[in-house]
């Protein structure tokens, strides 16, 4: 018996810039890969999801109204925060994430490096994607006509189990850089990296409510997210066939924009595949404006 008892942390949810426990009072046990109890995490309920969506809805106009330059800087700041927590995050990933090789480039340390780089990439995209996705249109008449991408609104991210943190970051960052607010539901299998990542989010100048992070048994919230009428889009990966159908059926609810990705673990680490404006494009709405250009 050691002469000092370790202080154990039960990770909490991250909603509206604050760290509440689940309103349901529930928590869940997190095991490491060997099946040993590693820690406890708050287990978000349907009501927590609703509250996170409300917070996101409130925060979204302000975030969308920030300059693209400012959004880019804030996301870069988030990358700085994650870099600072690299050791802690890597250890958690190596301890509990399935499929993460212990030491290779795709292990915990590699995954955290990829997260940082992914955030840096999308920080850079914040003030560029609209120049790639938007344009002037040469209409046949005396009109000035142009198309600009605008954020879709509130995007729900359903993160994969592996890579749990990179998956969450890669799904959230494109939506965030375009001025959307995000409610991310981490994988139930590996909630701790997401919970610690939230501590980085809390200190990175991202306004409260712009990125909310819930840990829970993800399955429990999938159908609620799909049918929630105030979620404008879903960006998901790693869903089984049943949950994929559930999420896609959410289109019928309120014309949600739904992107369900299916990537191998190694694909998530591929910048060519994951760091491009076509990942942003699913979470913007193209607005085309006409004005007469003759007197």
């Amino acid at each position, binding site marked *: 018996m050691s002469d000092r008892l370790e202080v154990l942390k039960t990770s909490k949810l991250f909603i509206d810039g604050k760290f509440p426990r689940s309103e349901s009072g529930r928590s869940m046990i997190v095991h490491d890969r060997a099946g040993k109890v590693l820690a406890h995490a708050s287990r978000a309920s349907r009501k927590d999801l609703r509250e996170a969506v409300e917070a996101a809805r409130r925060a979204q106009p302000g975030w969308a109204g920030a300059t693209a330059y400012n959004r880019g800087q804030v996301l870069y700041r988030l990358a700085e925060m994650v870099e600072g927590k690299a050791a802690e995050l890597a250890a958690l990933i190596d301890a509990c994430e399935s499929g993460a090789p212990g030491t290779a480039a795709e292990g915990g340390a590699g995954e955290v490096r990829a997260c940082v780089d992914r955030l840096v990439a999308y920080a850079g995209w914040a003030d560029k994607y609209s120049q*790639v*996705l938007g*344009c002037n*249109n*040469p*209409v*046949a*008449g005396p*009109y000035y*006509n142009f*198309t600009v991408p605008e954020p879709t609104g509130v995007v729900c991210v359903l993160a994969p189990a592996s890579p749990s943190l990179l998956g969450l970051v890669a799904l959230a960052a494109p939506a965030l850089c375009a001025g959307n607010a995000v409610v991310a539901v981490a994988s139930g299998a590996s909630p701790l990296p997401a919970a610690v990542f939230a501590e980085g989010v809390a200190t990175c100048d991202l306004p409260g409510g712009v990125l909310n992070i819930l840990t829970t048994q993800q399955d429990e919230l999938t159908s609620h997210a799909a049918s929630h009428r105030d979620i*404008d889009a879903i960006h998901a990966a790693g869903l089984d066939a049943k949950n994929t*159908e*559930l999420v*896609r*059926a959410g*289109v*019928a*609810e*309120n*014309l949600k*924009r739904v992107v369900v990705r299916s990537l191998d673990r190694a694909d998530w680490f591929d910048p*060519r*595949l994951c760091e*491009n*404006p*076509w990942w942003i*494009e699913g979470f913007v*709405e*193209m*607005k*085309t*404006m*006409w*004005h*007469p250009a003759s007197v």
Partner: protein
Amino acid sequence: MARTTPKRTSPTTKAPKPDRATPRGKAGSRAAAQATPAASSKPSRGGTWDYAPAPETVKVAIAEHYDLFINGEFVPPREGDAHFDTINPANESVLSRVAQGSPEDVDRAVRAAREAFPAWSGLKPIERAKYIFRLARRIQERARELAVLETLDSGKPIKESRDVDLPLVAAHFFYHAGWADKLAYAFPGRAPRPIGVCAQVIPWNFPLLMAAWKLAPALACGNTCVLKPAETTPLSALRLAEICREIELPPGVVNIVTGDGRTGAALVSHPDVDKVAFTGSTDVGKRIAKSVAATSKRLTLELGGKSANIIFEDASIDQAIEGIISGIYFNQGEVCCAGSRLLVQESILDRVVKKLRVRMASLRVGDPMDKNTDVGAMNSAQQLATVQKYLALGIDEGAELVLPGVRGEVEAQTPTRGFSKGYYCRPCFFTGVQPSHTIAREEIFGPVLSVMSFRTPEEAIARANNTPYGLAAGVWTDKGSKIFDVARKLKAGVVWMNTYNKFDPASPFGGFKESGFGREGGVQGLRAYVKLDS
């Protein structure tokens, strides 16, 4: 404020009687307007115009019946004599009989498209482009014939099918033809590939134009298509099928299966379809979304709208009036992006309403085949009934109807023709509309405008955005910074600033929110027809 109709009565039964004694050809719509109590209290200013009949004289051959266009051939439906009438909504006469495509017919068409896909997608892109250019040219050459056919089958004025629909149809094919060999430039950093077989279901309001919006980008991107035209307007698409044969488009690249909603349902749920594109009502769009949820089919939806047209006190009022008129009465208001909610700044409300009434009264309603006609026939008896339902609802809920759109009064309003048949609805608008009124919330799809007022730009924006839809919007002001500020804050896929209802193949069209997703036209429109992930 004009009160033309007593409240709590059906506009069909209690509308003011038109002056039947009005001699044809004299005074025209003004006379009709003056026949209503409202209009007689506001005499029109300036001279009135006489219009002699100006019928479109081009004759178009229409066969007694049409079969399905599958694999480059016209083939009868499998279920023997399964044909239904398509009628001319201007006079309710039967134009032809059209095949009711069964699930088995849909299957044949999808198989034809599947078999044609490898060769079509593997064709040298410039060759694919040349086929589409050929289509565009042949459409231009046969434009008048197609315009006449379109007007006969749909009820839209010949002026519009000739000067708007057909030029846009040809332009749409011409624009997209040129993309076929340039797709890599449209998607920087990606290698776009075609998706496969596209199931495309289109509405009756712009029958051939919607066919062009669907087919042109799909073909340019290397896909093959099965197109289901609307039940009430199949003829122009079938004529397009003939053109596909004329230009020697490889069999199976375009297939056209006519029929009603059952045919459409069979098509979108066919297991070998890779992509579904639908234009129509939000309800049907949601049903389609549900039906493809368990599949990997890609989906784009262009659905309904309840678009706001905002006019500020510092707008050029006369220009704005023209824009409001074309915004709601173009194509009998049967336009998904129709500016059906007019938001007027309070200080100019009376002036705008007065001018609107005068201008509305000058619209010539009647025979779509008359070159002077501004507002033709509603597409179907069913659509006319829907519009009448909303007129009654609007009155019931306490709004005030100005110049009711009523069947049976058309004769007096049209100097050039008398009608005993046809689905006509006079242009009209409601004043005293509350945002909670059904007519201010639901898509009517007819020549019915809801007029509301606002005080501040913030209020205008909030009210414009207070709808599940987000297809289009209009803003009228001569102040540059204000127009951009408002346009930026409107949640709509198309914002017309100091103009309305302008379309171009290079200009993407499509909605925010429940008006659907995906764009049609422009470089953004190509996205719906390519795969990008490697």
